[in-house]
């Protein structure tokens, strides 16, 4: 194996040792631009704000860099999207305690002042979040704030809620606040923000965050055609607009915003070129002059024009992505798609012409990977428990798989991108490997081999996924050209506004609501009273219970759908995305922004969590209450609410004797199939605000840990506060006696067309599993068998418990240890403690 290039090693070290910072530049420029453009068309306002930021934000080029461009004025920060509201509120709450966070953030006095004096006051009431809340209030999803009635109810709710969540839950949720001095100002802030929970969770079982994004940004178009060609498309489209057509001014404004945004991006690149030219003047060393000269040359050419070389193409991708980050802001989650496909022609030509060596290409790819990871998010402390901060915006890279024409698309660059990942011992961004029955065996084996040194790869099964996408209405070519977005979400490449993240249902919480007539979990301040789905004492058979659960589920899904519509409308009115739309198939043609349904394919996903915990709970109830009649359902519910206090023997029986999903039990696996079917049937009933379908996915990033914190004991034997199961993985409560085949069989059994938005199966293997050549063959065979049986996705972690424990004790020694969480991958030491524990608790195969 090749050694890590010293230049890359320095850059990796810089990334892993840099302080996390807050940068206010974008927030300030956006605030000022929006203040100046009140009353204008939302597309034009957004383009003006982007233009202002791209013109004025300080640009810099760091030592060693050969790909230039940064989304903020700091090395490791993120462009704060204050106009959305979520991070505005987080920052407001934690402004005085940023240095006390588990992963501290630095903020300069100037930035703090600007935030308090200029940013906060302007956005109060004007964010997407505020509009979303108003929309939810109008729809009767949450209670109207403020007012005396809700203030009183708020206190009552808060007290009930605190009792329910318990001390551990509260302490964890309080996070930094617990350690920080409680000043009058902070108390005021906390009081002011007490309804914020209800603005994410319309019910205790449903989440609807302020996020959109989560899509494949059309950087492939920037590489293939250049932005000036897209500007040309927009101009031509503008000329074709009929003066009497519907909403012609809106369309004209959108196209104008597209042109403005793309031109601003080209000028932004040119500013880097100017800077490089200036730096060259001061530089005497030949190598440095060449490096800077090349940056200048590239950024004058791209992203406006079509790139000429591999290096230039990578630069075009990167700068287009940086502008996307700035336009969309924090947690944009833009995938970069199938790099090995759209960059291959450049790679091949450069190699043939002899102007690029393999080693140079490898180093460029590694630099690109590092760049993709260079972002941090000041996520709230409760999120910290379950999330990574560094590289949280998952910029997925997809390699391998079918070409649009149906032939195998794996090429030399796919192998090189694997190698780049390998030599770096894993990078934080997702490397998604597509395999199909005709994939070259060497490629499958090589990607398995990379796990000897590096985690952070996930495998996707084209044979199943392409079929699922066809059933979603994709054309065959587009379906074969899918890429992975965010964590595990399968989406068309730069043609889909799929909204796969942020609309979530927690199955065990739905079950808890069904078992308690909608009383528990209790409503948080601002939430409505729960839905009563019947009295458990009256359920004579398991089918009665299942029917009540489906009734509760139906209610929760319709609330979520309505909440999502509220959010989508808020986005359309306040925060369209003309730059992102410019790179999206369909938007220029329809002269419509993605938020208004302009993309070629439009969906919303409902992300469902806790499948295994839920199925195991149903199986336990079925066995103990209805089959054996060992105890009555009300008695079991009482035991659950007491958190099994004094009933440890019963708890262990529930864990050990009830059939478990993912453990080779056909009945439990069939239960999961039914549950997926029920959820999908509910999703099918609805359409999103743009007319698109709802798709279902099962992944949990780290939030299954938070769900667990807020949920009482469950019938599968899980205690209060413990995490629920992640993705479609089996529960952590037991070690599958069925071996790795157990979870694989269970997941392969799920109907792919009903989870077409993606599932995530996490499995942890001991390194000894793949230590030998024979082990590696077995491991590769295992993945291919699982895929041949119909599995969609697998993300293995190959790391031993001992190493993870050691990393907890000595984070300094394991700074670059990468693990898969549930969808995304992260540096283990950057993760919160709770999620670290969850990863360690997962069954370890082959130990």
């Amino acid at each position, binding site marked *: 194996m090749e050694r890590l290039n010293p230049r890359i090693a320095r850059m990796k070290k810089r990334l892993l040792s840099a302080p996390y910072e807050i940068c206010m530049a974008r927030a300030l420029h956006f605030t000022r631009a929006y203040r100046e453009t009140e009353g204008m068309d939302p597309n034009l306002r957004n383009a003006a704000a982007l233009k202002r930021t791209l013109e004025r934000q300080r640009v810099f080029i760091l030592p060693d860099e050969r790909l230039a461009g940064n989304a903020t004025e700091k090395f490791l920060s993120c462009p704060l999207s204050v106009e959305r509201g979520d991070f505005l509120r987080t920052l407001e709450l934690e402004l005085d305690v940023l240095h006390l966070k588990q992963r501290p953030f630095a903020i300069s006095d100037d930035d703090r002042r600007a935030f308090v004096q200029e940013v906060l006051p302007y956005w109060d009431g004007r964010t997407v979040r505020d509009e979303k809340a108003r929309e939810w209030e109008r729809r009767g999803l949450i209670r109207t704030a403020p007012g005396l009635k809700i203030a009183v109810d708020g206190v009552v709710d808060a007290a009930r809620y605190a009792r329910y969540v318990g001390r551990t839950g509260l302490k964890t949720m309080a996070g930094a606040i617990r350690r920080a001095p409680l000043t009058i100002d902070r108390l005021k802030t906390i009081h002011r923000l007490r309804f914020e929970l209800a603005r994410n969770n319309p019910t205790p079982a449903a989440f609807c965050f302020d996020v959109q994004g989560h899509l494949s940004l059309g950087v492939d178009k920037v590489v293939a055609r250049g932005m000036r060609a897209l500007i040309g498309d927009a101009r031509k489209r503008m000329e074709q607009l009929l003066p009497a057509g519907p909403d012609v001014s809106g369309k004209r404004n959108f196209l104008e915003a597209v042109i403005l945004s793309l031109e601003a991006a080209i000028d932004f690149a040119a500013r880097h070129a100017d800077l490089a030219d200036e730096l060259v003047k001061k530089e005497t060393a030949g190598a440095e002059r060449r490096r800077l000269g090349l940056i200048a040359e590239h950024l004058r050419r791209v992203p406006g024009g079509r790139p000429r070389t591999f290096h230039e193409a990578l630069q075009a991708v990167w700068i287009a992505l940086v502008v996307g980050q700035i336009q969309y802001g924090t947690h944009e989650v833009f995938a970069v798609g199938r790099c090995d496909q759209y960059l291959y022609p450049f790679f091949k030509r450069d190699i043939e012409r002899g102007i690029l060596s393999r080693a140079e290409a490898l180093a460029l790819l590694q630099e690109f990977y590092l760049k993709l990871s260079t972002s941090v998010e000041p996520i709230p402390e409760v999120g910290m428990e379950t999330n990574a901060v560094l590289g949280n915006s998952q910029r997925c890279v997809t390699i391998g798989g079918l070409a649009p024409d149906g032939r195998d698309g794996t090429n030399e660059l796919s192998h090189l991108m694997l190698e780049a990942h390998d030599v770096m011992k894993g990078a934080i961004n997702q490397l998604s490997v597509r395999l199909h029955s005709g994939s070259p065996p060497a490629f499958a084996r090589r990607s398995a081999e990379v796990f000897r040194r590096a985690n952070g790869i996930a495998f996707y099964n084209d044979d199943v996924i392409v079929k699922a996408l066809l059933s979603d209405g994709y054309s065959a070519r587009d379906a074969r050209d899918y890429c992975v977005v965010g964590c595990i979400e399968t989406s068309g490449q730069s043609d889909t506004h799929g909204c796969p993240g942020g609309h979530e249902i927690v199955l065990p919480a739905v079950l808890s609501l069904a078992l308690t007539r909608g009383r528990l979990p209790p409503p948080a301040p601002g939430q409505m009273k729960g839905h009563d789905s019947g009295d458990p004492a009256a359920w004579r058979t398991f089918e009665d219970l299942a029917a009540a659960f489906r009734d509760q589920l139906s209610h929760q899904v319709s609330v979520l759908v309505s909440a999502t519509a509220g959010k989508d409308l808020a986005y359309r009115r306040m925060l369209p995305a003309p730059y992102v739309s410019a790179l999206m198939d369909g938007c220029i043609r329809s002269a419509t922004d993605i938020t208004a349904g302009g993309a070629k394919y439009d969906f919303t996903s409902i992300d469902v969590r806790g499948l295994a915990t839920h199925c195991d709970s149903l199986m336990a109830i079925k066995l103990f209450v209805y089959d054996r009649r060992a105890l009555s359902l009300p008695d079991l519910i009482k035991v659950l609410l007491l958190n099994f206090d004094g009933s*440890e*023997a*019963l708890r*262990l*029986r529930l864990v*050990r004797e009830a059939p478990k999903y993912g453990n*080779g039990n056909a009945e439990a696996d069939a239960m999961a199939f039914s549950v997926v079917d029920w959820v999908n049937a509910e999703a099918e009933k609805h359409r999103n605000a743009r007319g698109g379908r709802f798709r279902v996915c099962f992944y949990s990033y780290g939030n299954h840990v938070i769900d667990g914190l807020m949920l009482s004991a469950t019938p599968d034997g899980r205690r209060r506060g413990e995490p629920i199961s992640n993705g479609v993985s089996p529960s952590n409560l037991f070690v599958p*006696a*069925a*071996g*790795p*085949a*157990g979870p*694989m069989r269970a997941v392969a059994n799920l109907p792919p067309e009903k989870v077409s938005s993606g599932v995530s199966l996490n499995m942890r293997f001991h390194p*000894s*599993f793949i230590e*030998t050549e*024979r*082990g590696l*063959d*077995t*491991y590769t*065979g*295992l993945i*291919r*068998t699982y895929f*041949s*049986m119909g599995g969609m996705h697998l993300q293995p972690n190959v790391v031993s418990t001992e190493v993870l424990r050691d990393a907890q004790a000595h984070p300094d020694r394991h700074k670059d240890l990468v693990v898969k969480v549930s969808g995304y991958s992260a540096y283990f030491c950057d993760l919160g403690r709770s999620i670290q524990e969850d990863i360690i608790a997962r069954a370890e*195969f*082959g130990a």
Partner: protein
Amino acid sequence: MNGLIFDVSRGCVDDGPGYRTVVFLKGCALDCPWCHNPEGKSFQPEIAFDPAKCLSCGACQAACPRQRAHDLRPPTHDMGLGPRDSKPPAPGYGLRTPDSVVSRRSSGVSHQWRLGCTACGKCAVACPSGARRLAGEEYTVGALVDEVTADLPFFSGTGGGVTFSGGEPMARPDFVFECAKMLRARGIHVAVETAGFWPVQLVRKLVDGVDLILFDIKHVDARAFRKATGKDVSPVLKNLETTLASDLPVELRLTLIPGFNDSAADLKAIAKFLKCMPRMPPVTLQPFHRLAVSKQAIFDCAYPYAGARPVTRKELGTARRTLAREGIKTA
């Protein structure tokens, strides 16, 4: 025809090629003190009891026909008198020999209830926490074959199959051969992991009946072998030779045991013997580990190697080099 099985372990990768299910048969004639599966020695079922998991709920006591299941009084010396109803050739293990009385005291967790326990398994069924478990269940050939066939796609996808281990699987040759016949008829690869101590007449049937033999070499020196295992080494060596004279795939396993076969002289003797064999299959060198320490308390058994230090990487490397100098390549 039944086999007494104390574990079926799925998803193994160290016991033959591919994805494997390992079937552990109970009972072994050899009494190796370092054995990491001491529950595999006796030919009788036993109750495993893990005090760490016990809730003291009393469910086992209520279920026990003798009402003694949870009798946790400290052991006394006269306890060692009553031998458990186990047939030979069960070696000195459990509460049988004066040696084990000593070891019981050293491990400190012995229980009155083991006296006269017939391992009926009722307490294990009653136990909610899994502290009590029945080690040793009777399987018919059909039941076992059906159970392991569930993983057929994984076997064929990885070139894996079923490995019979133990204990000593060849102490139940009829059961193993019958299972192997049915498994192979379903296209499943079958391996047998053996220490070689069985009647020489069986070798023909073994060679014809399975796809791979994993042969465990402990030592070639008769005195050392007898001292450790209590048995004669010559049938082992004879069986090894005849097996290697066939054209069946064989893999050799050599576990490095401190103080038994890890000296240069021991290794040279082993190498010298191996070189005289009809052919030289691949040798896997494994280090001794102490995983059985926890089983002392669970099976109430003596484990003389509890205090032995594990083999270091360095020692493993040295042994590897010693063997290599003698012309034996190891994996």
